């Protein structure tokens, strides 16, 4: 039984979606050109005027925006309405450099909440659900986004925010949380903690909406099995609004981009050329309904694939794959691109815990990739040779996946920092920049 929050939009015909996009894009370009001198300059440099943009086919005439632009224009340079019309500021978690701030009018917040509501309903949420939000509240968009969406759906919202695992679990048991919203690494940590306390029978969760960090299909299976829930992916970024830019439906085959608000493109990250559907490249978003902070052709740095095939859930909006990596957490080791998600896939396939850490060092001008893996009872033996064989197997599987040699280092159980927010998976000690 498919669940929609706004069926007339989520299942609209492709022609209808195209018509909305054409109309809104033309309006948005004019709005930005008139109100954002920073972007007007970029357009002028490219010799483009608003009249050149008549439909989505003209999108590629527009200049790109990058995170560097956002930093340069910090804080008000990309604001398109008077500050007095704004009601909210959110900010990125700042893991990759200077903070970026985004502004919202009340209208922007409403539309953002709608996007999150679509995600919650797609995960089976109704007004009878208890939505347990343990994304951080505050400047981070995770908490406020899902909170707003849950209100729109009419679910009972538990604004837990992150941290204090004991209290999370207690409320989950006492108040009967049915939908969990947090980062996948925290979901895995919660699952583990619930088992440690022997409380698995008191948990009423049926679904989880997990995003804000990279996670693999294997990690999904792991969380689903441990918590007996269906785990849904959600994607978003503060620059474009927050979580809910795209979300997964029950088909679990990619995330539907809310195309009535955001136009998605895939480009070649080197040349900037737009790539056809199905090709892997950098995801670019144009926000066509935002008033306060309307970014045009914003380069997300996320590498993924778009799929316009009809989805079994009935939604017509394009699906994006799980990001296969981010240019800013992609490591280049010995000249080879390495994504932490690849390492995670190998570990989970071989029955190791998903809690790992990647350490990159440089010795005598040569890169060394080390993967710390926690020892488990299954892997352990009183005989050294048996452990060594398992270690070698893992080394071989990593080599096959990555194309380069990684040194596996077995470490004490629970010695790798467990995250209550975003996981620190990679430590690059090379000081390359």
């Amino acid at each position, binding site marked *: 039984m498919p669940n929609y929050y706004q069926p007339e939009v989520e299942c609209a015909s492709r022609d209808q979606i195209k018509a909305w996009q054409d109309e809104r894009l033309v309006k948005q370009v004019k709005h930005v050109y008139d109100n954002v001198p920073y972007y007007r300059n970029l357009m002028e440099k490219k010799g483009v005027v608003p009249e050149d943009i008549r439909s989505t086919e003209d999108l590629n005439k527009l200049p790109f925006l990058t995170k560097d632009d956002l930093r340069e224009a910090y804080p008000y340079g990309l604001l398109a309405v008077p500050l007095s019309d704004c009601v909210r500021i959110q900010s990125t978690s700042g893991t990759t450099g200077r903070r970026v701030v985004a502004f919202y009018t009340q209208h922007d917040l409403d539309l953002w909440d709608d996007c999150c509501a679509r995600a919650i309903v797609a995960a089976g949420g109704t007004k009878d659900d208890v939505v347990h939000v343990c994304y951080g509240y505050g400047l981070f968009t995770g908490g406020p986004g899902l909170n707003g969406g849950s209100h729109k759906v009419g679910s009972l919202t538990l604004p837990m925010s992150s941290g204090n695992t004991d209290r999370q679990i207690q409320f989950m048991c006492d108040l009967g949380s049915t939908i969990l919203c947090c980062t996948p690494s925290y979901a895995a940590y919660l699952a583990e903690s619930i088992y440690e306390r022997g409380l698995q029978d008191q948990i009423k969760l049926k679904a989880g909406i997990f995003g804000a960090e990279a996670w693999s299909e294997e990690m999904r299976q792991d969380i689903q099995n441990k918590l007996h829930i269906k785990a849904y992916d959600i994607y978003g970024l503060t620059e474009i609004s927050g979580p809910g830019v795209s979300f997964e439906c029950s088909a679990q085959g990619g995330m539907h981009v809310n195309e009535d608000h955001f136009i998605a493109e895939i480009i070649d990250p080197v040349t900037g050329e737009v790539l056809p559907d199905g090709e892997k490249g950098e995801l670019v978003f144009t926000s066509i309904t935002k008033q306060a902070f309307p970014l045009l052709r914003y380069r997300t740095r996320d590498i993924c694939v778009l799929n316009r095939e009809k989805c079994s859930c009935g939604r017509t909006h394009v699906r994006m794959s799980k990001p296969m990596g981010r240019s800013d957490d992609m490591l280049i080791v010995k000249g080879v691109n390495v994504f932490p998600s690849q390492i995670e896939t190998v570990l989970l396939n071989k029955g190791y815990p998903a809690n790992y850490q990647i350490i990159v060092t440089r010795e005598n001008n040569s890169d060394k990739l080390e993967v710390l893996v926690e*020892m488990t*009872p299954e892997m*352990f*033996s*009183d*005989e050294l040779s048996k452990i060594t064989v398992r270690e070698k197997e893992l080394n071989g599987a990593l080599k096959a996946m990555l194309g380069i040699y990684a040194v596996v280092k*077995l470490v004490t*159980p629970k*010695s790798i920092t467990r995250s209550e927010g975003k996981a620190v998976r990679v430590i690059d000690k090379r000081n390359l920049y």
Partner: protein
Amino acid sequence: MTAKQISVFLENKPGQLTEFAKLLEQHGINMHALCVADAKDFGILRIIVDDSYKTACVLKEADYVFSITPVLAVEMPDKPGSLARILDLLAENEINLEYTYAFTSRKEGYAYMILRVTDNERAIEVLGENGVKLICQHDMGGIFCQ
């Protein structure tokens, strides 16, 4: 007729064994035998203790990864040739030895070895037939309080 060896995973970094020893001390657990097998980044600590059940509980609580393996504890006269005789018996019967280590007791004139073999049952049979004395976990305390 076996002793219960507890094998513990320890990461190869300063303080790991100290921490472990202190944990046993806190719980009043006494070790009869100890041996460390070391790889590059980690080691396997193998111990025989007075109370293996209690030790297992303490280790589980402290999040150690460990296993319990039945091994043979052999008593032999403390003189040249004793070990060779036992090893000969094993070899003649094609019982492979994975690893071994020695320990002492308060009993004068005797030496003790832990043997980890591929086939415990066969080894017990062969050694028994040839009059080699095996100390089981239950009797382990006996050789330490004379």
